[in-house]
């Protein structure tokens, strides 16, 4: 398990941990059986810009670091952009992930999509 310094930094001092009380888009993916659950909270304004984002994650170091990095990356994006965030961009921002941990970055991208879908459905609006 060779994590980059960026991964360790995001694991040790993750940004945007917790629930956003005023989130209007929430998405959760993964399963405890697989060892990862990621829940993403988004506060999206009327222009479709992500004003704030946060996460809660059950998972390994890479899952936590991916959550931290991904939420940080999408704040300020509009939801079209954010929905297109590729897992490879998260990996790159983290300076790389071990092969067997790439799926954590996938999970982060998917959780963001799920939260945006949730916002669009107006489920939590």
């Amino acid at each position, binding site marked *: 398990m060779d994590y980059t310094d960026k991964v360790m930094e995001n694991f*040790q001092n993750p940004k945007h941990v917790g629930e956003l009380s005023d989130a209007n888009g929430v998405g959760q993916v993964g*399963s*405890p*059986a*697989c*060892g990862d*659950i990621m829940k993403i909270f988004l506060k999206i304004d009327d222009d479709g810009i992500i004003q704030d984002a946060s996460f809660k*994650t059950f998972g*390994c170091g890479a*899952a936590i670091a991916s959550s931290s990095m991904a939420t940080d990356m999408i704040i300020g994006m509009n939801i079209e952009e954010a929905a297109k965030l590729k897992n490879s961009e998260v990996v790159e921002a983290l300076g790389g992930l071990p092969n067997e941990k790439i799926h954590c970055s996938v999970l982060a991208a998917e959780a963001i999509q799920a939260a945006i879908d949730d916002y669009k459905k107006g489920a939590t609006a």
Partner: protein
Amino acid sequence: MKRIYLDHAATTPIDPQVYEVMTKILAEEYGNPSSIYSEGRSVKKYVETAREQIAKAINADIREIYFTGSGSEADNWAIKGIAMKNRAKGKHIITTQIEHHAILHTCEYLEKDGFEVTYLPVDEFGLISLDDLKAAIRKDTILVSIMFANNEIGTIEPIKEIGEIVKEKGVIFHTDAVQAFGNVPIDVKDLNVDLLSISAHKIYGPKGMGALFIRKGVLIDNLIHGGAQERKKRAGTENTAGIAAFGKAAELAVINLEENSKHLQTLRDMLIEGVMAKIPQVRLNGHPTKRLPGNVSFCFDYIEGESILLSLDLAGIAASSGSACTSGSLDPSHVLLAIGLPAGVAHGSLRLTIGKHTSQEDIEYVIEQLVVIIERLRKMSPIDVNCPIDDAVFEDAGHHH
């Protein structure tokens, strides 16, 4: 930062006395023990001394000890060697669901070759049932392999009782004693085992060095064919330095066994009690008393094992989740699943294994750190006691795996 090493079940640091023996052979005794000239004869003595030390440590005869290149090789040899030798008699093997992968994957390999394997279940503490065992033995059963003590949860199986049952049925009995050796007394004469695997690096010896005890009269196919080493049973120029070091390590382990295991047990119980008292929602895996003196295994609900390990590492503590050899793997431990834990919980496991150099202060520090780490990770987790996750629901969603 001071490091606290609590992964002695994965491997141990070499003992200074063992190091001394090993480096002496490396530096001064380069002969090939099969050679007849003085360099060869001289190093051969060290090999035979080591064989005596190992034999004595388990009350075997020196001609019953065969050196191998690892505990895994000893396990593979025992299973494949007995299976191949006896395939005309029968193709049924009995083992357990909680064996080390060196046994399990070997058995799975044999299954592809037409062998039939019964994997005995275990109870919530990791113990097999003697009745299950009796019921499983068939006319065509050629081998029973049940581990002495489990590497993840530390549970010690009733080897003597198993040996009696197996012997009565005239079946060959192997036990993987890699974790037990040096931690609990082992007497192969008393135990009725026919084959027993051990490994040096678990008892403050070098890595890449194991041995298989094969009771006199038990016929076995070779795993590694070639030269006439090890009485023609295991080919390859002897790892002379490793062998001598293993012998020394075994001698030390046995001399200090009682004292050491008392030390481990005291710290183990202190660690278990401290964590159980200070951290909510934690389970102790394995048997409360029938367990290795140095083994502690927990499951912390709502959080995942690797993130605990990384946090501990940052705090200077080396520990493991599941077994070291599978720590690259994403699957939850087969042992934890076998004792009935749901996969989601099994992912939150932490194994702390104590060694002879571990101190009471170390344990206190670890408890302190664990309290903080578990709380921090739980705060990050989307699941908790009020919002538990139904595994079944999420299993469907688990399309990544």
